[in-house]
């Protein structure tokens, strides 16, 4: 076991933290959230220049990763992005959809997509979840019918993260052989994208597919074999969300501690009151324990053993969901009235933490998965 980051990882962390402080101030971020795209293409370009968009991809396809996707690098990026409340669709493009193409795509598909993603020229999104399925990964009503040499896709995908900005969608659909995955041009005929803002200022989309025609080369991975691939990509996504949550929790703790030391009532700093001191301590403990779980999820997300990976990821998502709820709610509480106003970053951090819990399976969902694994053990 080794709890230290490599020199390269430390350098990456320093770069990111400088970037977030200098180039991603809260006020500018608020304006970005209200812009047409909901994020900045300029930032995206800089992410590409910093190598962030290439981080999880192999060198052969324009990437930087020697190991083929080290989730610990992603952990560092996402923790910093949490602190900055970064709006750019990094999770959806690079980690989830990019990870899927990396792990399941043919050489030609990787060649066509990954260098363009790494270079910041193309955005991707996984259009998988549907309204009726809630968090059940295996349940997909969207259908793909063989049509000539290709396929025709019909169905509806819900709350597709980054779906509005994606150039290429990875759409899951059932064929006669089971769950399969297809590359779909977001501007193809029959694709209708309804883009909207989410509670935390990011963007998602409802995507309707009406007899969308794709070629035979659009199939990603084996026909009927998409489920384990999607599960793995979502697990990478969950590990990333866990790290983002830890970044936010740490930032909230710093803000709250500062507030306790400066806000005066009854003639003294409110941090003098033991009731508030102990609450603050509980927030710190929750965050450190969550950091441990996020580290575990990051390491195990790379594990070749699917059962071990799934168990670790569900454990982390359930646990961090609970702790993030506590830290978020208490940060608001300890800020008093200032905790519930739009003007201060505290309410924005709280909203993002809350939406992270609801993404890719909430606490109850993952606690249930983890709990059910006890039956098999």
């Amino acid at each position, binding site marked *: *076991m*080794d*709890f*230290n*980051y*490599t020199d390269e*990882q430390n350098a990456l962390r320093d770069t990111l933290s400088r970037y977030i402080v200098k180039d991603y101030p809260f006020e500018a971020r608020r304006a970005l959230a209200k812009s047409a795209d909901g994020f900045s293409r300029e930032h995206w370009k800089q992410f590409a220049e910093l190598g962030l968009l290439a981080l999880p991809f192999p060198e052969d396809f324009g990437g930087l990763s020697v190991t083929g996707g080290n989730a*610990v690098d992603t952990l560092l990026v996402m923790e910093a992005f949490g602190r900055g409340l970064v709006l750019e669709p990094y999770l959806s493009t690079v980690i989830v959809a990019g990870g899927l193409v990396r792990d399941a795509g043919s050489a030609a598909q990787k060649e066509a997509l990954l260098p363009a993603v790494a270079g910041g020229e193309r955005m991707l999104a996984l259009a998988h979840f549907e309204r009726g399925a809630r968090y059940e990964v295996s349940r997909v009503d969207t259908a793909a019918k063989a049509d000539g040499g290709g396929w025709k896709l019909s169905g509806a995908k819900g709350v597709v993260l980054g779906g509005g900005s994606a150039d290429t969608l990875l759409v899951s659909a059932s064929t006669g052989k089971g769950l399969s995955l297809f590359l779909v041009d977001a501007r193809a005929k029959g694709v209708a994208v309804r883009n909207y803002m989410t509670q935390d200022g990011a963007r998602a989309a409802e995507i309707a597919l009406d007899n969308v025609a794709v070629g035979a080369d659009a199939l990603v991975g084996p026909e009927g074999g998409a489920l384990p691939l999607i599960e793995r990509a979502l697990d990478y996504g969950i590990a990333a969300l866990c790290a983002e949550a830890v970044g936010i929790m740490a930032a909230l703790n710093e803000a709250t*501690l500062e507030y*306790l*030391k400066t806000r005066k009532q009854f003639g003294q700093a409110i*941090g*003098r009151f*033991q009731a508030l*001191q*102990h609450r*603050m*301590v*509980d927030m*710190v*403990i929750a965050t*450190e*324990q*969550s*950091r*441990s*779980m996020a*580290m*575990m999820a990051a*390491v*195990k997300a790379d594990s070749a053993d699917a059962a071990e990976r799934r168990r670790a990821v569900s*454990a982390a998502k*359930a*646990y961090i969901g609970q702790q993030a709820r506590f830290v978020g709610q208490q940060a608001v509480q300890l800020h008093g009235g200032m905790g519930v106003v739009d003007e201060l970053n505290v309410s924005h951090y709280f909203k993002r933490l809350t939406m992270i819990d609801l993404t890719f399976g909430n606490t109850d969902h993952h*606690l*249930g998965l*983890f*709990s*059910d694994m*006890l*039956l098999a*053990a």
Partner: protein
Amino acid sequence: MDLNYTAEEQAFRAEVRAFVTTHLPADISAKVKGGKRLAKDDFVRWQKVLHAKGWGATMWPQKFGGTGWSAVQQYIFEEECAEAGAPLQLPFGLRMVAPVIQAFGSKGQQEHFLPRIVDGSDWWCQGYSEPGSGSDLASLKTRAERQGDHYVVNGQKTWNTLGQYADWIFCLVRTSGEGRPQEGISFLLIDMKTPGITVRPIIMNDGEHEINEVWFEDVKVPVQNLVGEENKGWTYAKFLLGHERTGIAGVGRSKAALHHLKEIARQETSAGRPMIEDQRFRDRIAQVELELMALEITNMRVLSAEKEKKAPGPEASILKIKGSEIQQTIAELQMQAMGHYALPWLPEALDPAWPGKPVGAGYAAPLSGHYFNYRKTTIYGGSNEIQKNIIAQMILGL
């Protein structure tokens, strides 16, 4: 960063497991796993077995006769011992007084006491709390007056664990009434056979004799048994508490206890089905397992960082708080898993030699008592509220 065990660490685990499973006396592990009462000899025998292997003090540096193991190695050892059903290596000598003697004791004290701790010759107990001084430890009143080459000690200590077996007690005593209460405290090593010491049992809520009151009446202690400087004892006391907190997380033991809980939940039935299939109960097990998974990593993060700084910091308080809460939760779930068969009280069933027939399952007898007893864990070693004060002051600067 890699949270997977390296090949060397896996080989080390195999080595520890091979040794522990072949050298841990079967009668002792049967008692530990069955929740039976342990005798002094059980603890001492195991310590002597470990000492013979050179593993008597895994938390000490090599120059004092320890193994000098890394934090990860210590954890692997702890986990393997717990899984095998080894008795806890009692902390009073190994984890509490020894680090103080190593850091602040005289050469003579180091040479005399440390080998006798690691080889199991001396059983140590703690003289910290007093009836009027619990969380406010610095208010302690037990006095030591210098008379020639002796201190004469008068006063009363309490919450003294297993002192009925002890050869030595380390005590915080007041040597000065000047200045702040913290400034007049000294750290004394006292032979329990010294005339004037009386040990009186305190019976715990599980009916067991685990703790004592210790009375001192004109007890003569040679001045060479003073550790470090007179009136500097508070510094040593805090140092000791840091070490105590570090060992107190008990992750390995909680993993073994969680394993036992799952076994019980597979055996006990509700409406004809194992309790583990009761989703409401299973979710409670899952919840405490999540807490334990997080603590396992936090524990090693903190211990690895400490290893580099050479002394426990206030972060150890996090381990104490979470570790004790988890221990209590697992104990509570073990009792709850029994349903109404948690009611019978059979103290005789805790005697390893008892020939009687258990009421209900054989594993039932110790569980409720264990739950009651384990309410102590959030109180001892500095209550969890005191730990939060420490974090608030030392880490957060509040």
